[in-house]
């Protein structure tokens, strides 16, 4: 009750103090106490069999979260069996493990209300598990069984495959999925990164392909594990020791990353759909994580199309002209091979040419004129001051550290992130734009029923390729 009194008095005093001046002042006149913030520490250790473990304790709630990464991505899929890594992920999760049948796996997970997902990315197979502290032994035991003794029960593999086929069959229902796939295939043409699973390639995957994939990649020396929540190091070490100690791996064969072939000539790719709005994606090859322009490009991203309402694309196309609801751009930083630069928007079929023209105009401006001091300050302040949000969730802290180690980022990446951003000048942004942003060499994907596409292609000097109506059965 004592506390109540204090609050009431403080409240009244402040109210009394400001009743005379309710006129609002511009928020720029406010001043703020400095924010003290240190990078949170993550514990790191390695098991004898090679598993690298990252731990962040957080005892607020009786929950533990784990994420594991294996160096086993879809980039390794044979082109005629594209979808292998993805089918492997879903079969490990759903086709039985250890002493449990597929149904028993599900009922165990559900009885302890655990969340478990396994997914494949370009360079990694990623697993996420969330459970209550009290269920650690059972939940992590099941996880260990999936890694060490998966069943690949043929019936459940078939089920996983059929569900995957159905989702491929339905890809064309969504303009954004269709546009994304069309663009990525075109920009990575001739490379594994540009090969997408089709009905045919998914049907070609055999059960033994899954077993071989598992033997080859799911090994302790190829595993990184991030753990956060209500668990201390000793408990974790005991648990992992008990479940994983006797698991040994083969030394991995050295795998060379196939370099990207030269990019295909830019084109305008039209996927016709009878809908009132066209999805526009514009893209080109971009950068890798070790590019010296990385920080200049982060600033460029914010100013061009990554800074939401503060970006040029948003202000010109949405706010000033009302031509789109969403419009954006970004350099997706390639972890191992160059990523893509992608700019996108959706607009009614009649204004496609106008929007494409404006997007191109804004990109060209980035390569012609230095950005203004105001824009530079805004972008840098925003990126630097929001850095703290990379650490507001204990699991994000520990899984981010794991990802940085997994992909071989420099040790001082986080420590020096802000100072490296702070050092970026308008000149750097211009130079980076000139080196990396090439509007005339970009491929344009249109999904919808745009007006006069041939004229637009001609005007931009691009060949128009009609991709025809997409149909999930074409691969048959």
């Amino acid at each position, binding site marked *: 009750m004592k506390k109540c009194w204090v609050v009431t008095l403080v409240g009244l005093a402040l109210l009394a103090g400001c009743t005379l001046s309710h006129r609002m002042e511009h928020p720029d006149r406010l001043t703020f106490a400095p924010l003290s913030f240190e990078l949170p520490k993550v514990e790191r250790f390695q098991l004898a069999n090679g598993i690298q473990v990252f731990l962040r304790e957080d005892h607020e*709630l009786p929950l533990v979260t784990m994420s594991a990464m294996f160096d086993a991505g879809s980039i390794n899929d044979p082109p005629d069996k594209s979808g292998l890594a993805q089918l492997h992920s879903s079969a490990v999760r759903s086709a039985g493990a250890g002493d449990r049948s597929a149904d028993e796996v599900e009922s165990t997970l559900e009885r302890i209300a655990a969340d478990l997902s396994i997914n494949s990315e370009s360079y990694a197979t990623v697993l996420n598990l969330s459970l209550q502290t009290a269920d650690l032994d059972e939940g992590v035991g099941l996880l260990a069984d999936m890694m060490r003794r998966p069943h690949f029960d043929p019936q459940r593999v078939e089920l996983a495959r059929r569900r995957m086929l159905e989702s491929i069959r339905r890809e064309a229902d969504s303009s954004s999925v269709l546009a994304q796939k069309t663009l990525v295939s075109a920009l990575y043409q001739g490379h594994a990164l540009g090969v997408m699973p089709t009905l045919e390639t998914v049907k070609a995957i055999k059960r033994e392909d899954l077993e071989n994939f598992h033997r080859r990649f799911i090994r302790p020396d190829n595993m990184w594990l991030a753990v956060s929540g209500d668990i201390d190091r000793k408990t974790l070490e005991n648990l992992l020791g008990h479940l994983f100690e006797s698991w040994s791996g083969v030394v991995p064969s050295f795998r060379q990353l196939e370099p990207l072939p030269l990019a295909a000539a830019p084109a305008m790719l039209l996927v016709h759909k009878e809908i009132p709005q066209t999805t526009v994606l514009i893209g080109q090859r971009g950068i890798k994580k070790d590019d010296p322009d990385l920080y200049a490009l982060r600033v460029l991203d914010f100013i061009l199309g990554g800074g939401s309402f503060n970006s040029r694309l948003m202000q010109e196309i949405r706010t000033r002209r009302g031509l789109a609801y969403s419009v954006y751009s970004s350099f997706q930083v390639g972890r191992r091979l160059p990523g893509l630069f992608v700019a996108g928007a*959706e607009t009614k079929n009649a204004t496609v040419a106008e929007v494409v023209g404006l997007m191109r105009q804004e990109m060209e401006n980035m390569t012609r004129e230095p950005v203004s001091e105001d824009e530079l300050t805004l972008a840098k302040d925003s990126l630097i001051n929001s850095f703290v949000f990379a650490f507001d969730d204990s699991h994000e802290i520990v899984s981010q550290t794991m990802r940085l180690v997994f992909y071989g980022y420099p040790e001082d990446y986080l420590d020096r992130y802000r100072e490296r951003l702070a050092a970026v000048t308008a000149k750097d942004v211009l130079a980076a734009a000139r080196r990396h942003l090439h509007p005339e060499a970009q491929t344009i994907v249109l999904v919808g029923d745009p007006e006069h596409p041939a004229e637009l292609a001609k005007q931009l000097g691009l060949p128009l390729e009609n991709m025809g109506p997409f149909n999930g059965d074409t691969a048959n």
Partner: protein
Amino acid sequence: MAAIFLFCLWTSICHAQPLAEKVQEHIFPNGLRLLVVERHNAPTFSAYLTVGVGSVDETNGDRGLAHFLEHLRFKGTEILGTRNFTAEKPLLAAIEKAGDALDDLRRSPNVDPKAMSALEDRLHALQQKHRDFVVTDEASNIYARHGGVGYNAFTSKDLTSYIISLPSNKLELWAAVESDRMAHAVLREFYTERDVILEERRRSYDSNPDGLLYEQLLATAFTVHPYRHPIIGWPSDIRNLRPRQAREFMHKYYTPVNTVIALVGAVDFDEAVAMVGRYFGHLAAGTPVPGVATVEPPQRGERRVKVVFDAQPKLEVAFHKPTLPSRDDYVFDVIDQLLGQGRTSRLYQRLVVEKQLAAEVSTYVAPGSRYPNLFVCHLVPRHPHTVEEVEHALYEELDRLSRKPVNDADLKRVRNRLRVDQLRSLKSNSGLAGMLTYFQTVAGDWRYLSEYDRQVASVTAEDVMAVARKYFTSENRTVAILEAKGQQP
């Protein structure tokens, strides 16, 4: 002024209620309610400012307005978003006059194209002139510079929320920007934003088969209750919204008496009360939202609707049900888990694993929670199986639920799942802030959340059977089918 501290309210029989211990509450004399959860593990906080006004509070003639206002309230105030409000004001009035005249002309029976194009030119010229006064998205700029993330807003049937997460030393910035928005929002760039919303509609509905199917499901299941209308509005509704309507609606309802704020993160409760009091405390209470008087009459027979579109077939089946805090609503939460959540759920087991008729199944409650709503089953057939086969299999499962009691292990599993999921939802500052303002607004009390486990724990196998029997009838059913274009009989 009432300061209420909520230490463990439930000297509970089972386990401590983590939520009730953490929420601190303060109600200001003007009706504004503040909820705070202090959590000092990172120097950040999330703010949800939720106004209990949604599309359900619109009537014929202003449909789409709540969502439109959500957009317009990002356009600034008398001090933000303008270079000189005094000089800008007459221009805003001139734009409105031209826009109104143009809208009138567009609706008149015999449109003179010359007059129309003259007015369009005039409006365009005024808008060009207006640009000189506008500081584009200034609030967004200020929040960004100070490290804000997730600056956004959303409108639902029941409410509108304005959200931002900031470094913890920027509480006053939030209070200054948001109280200014509540008191002095200026709805500039009206006609351009109306075009943005038409693009949003094309994106989420007119070019999106899932959006269209859902829209038709609601418009068919509800015949008179405003839950039948899309939040964004029908295209012709959006085209005819006027600045005056928006201002009047805003001044009446976007006020302290209809507002609840949740601050979660590195915030001190006493400081938060003082800060919110200083910036919002003097604002006039405003008019309480009257609530919807219209009651949807009982459905007297199955309704079916088809959407023909260039997409693979799908199916949604909906049943009318009461909303929270009715006992049956808790039973439906249990049914939702039993039927449609996770891989041990009955629909997944039967339709996806055993019969392999469907590739995906899920269940959800929609479209809002302030008024009686729907329990919906969403089913994706697996080629070459048809919607008819999937629909038939669904009814078999619903029938089983109403005839055979659920076993204890299943009930226990569901209760445990609901409890642990609630625990998980406490992890993120922004998620928790959202839940608190949501339940305060739709249930009238955030404590709905802390009492939830106890309610669910008391649901019995007989309850499940009785509710299934009562609501899963063909009379109470609406079926919406997405049919691939060119495949109609």
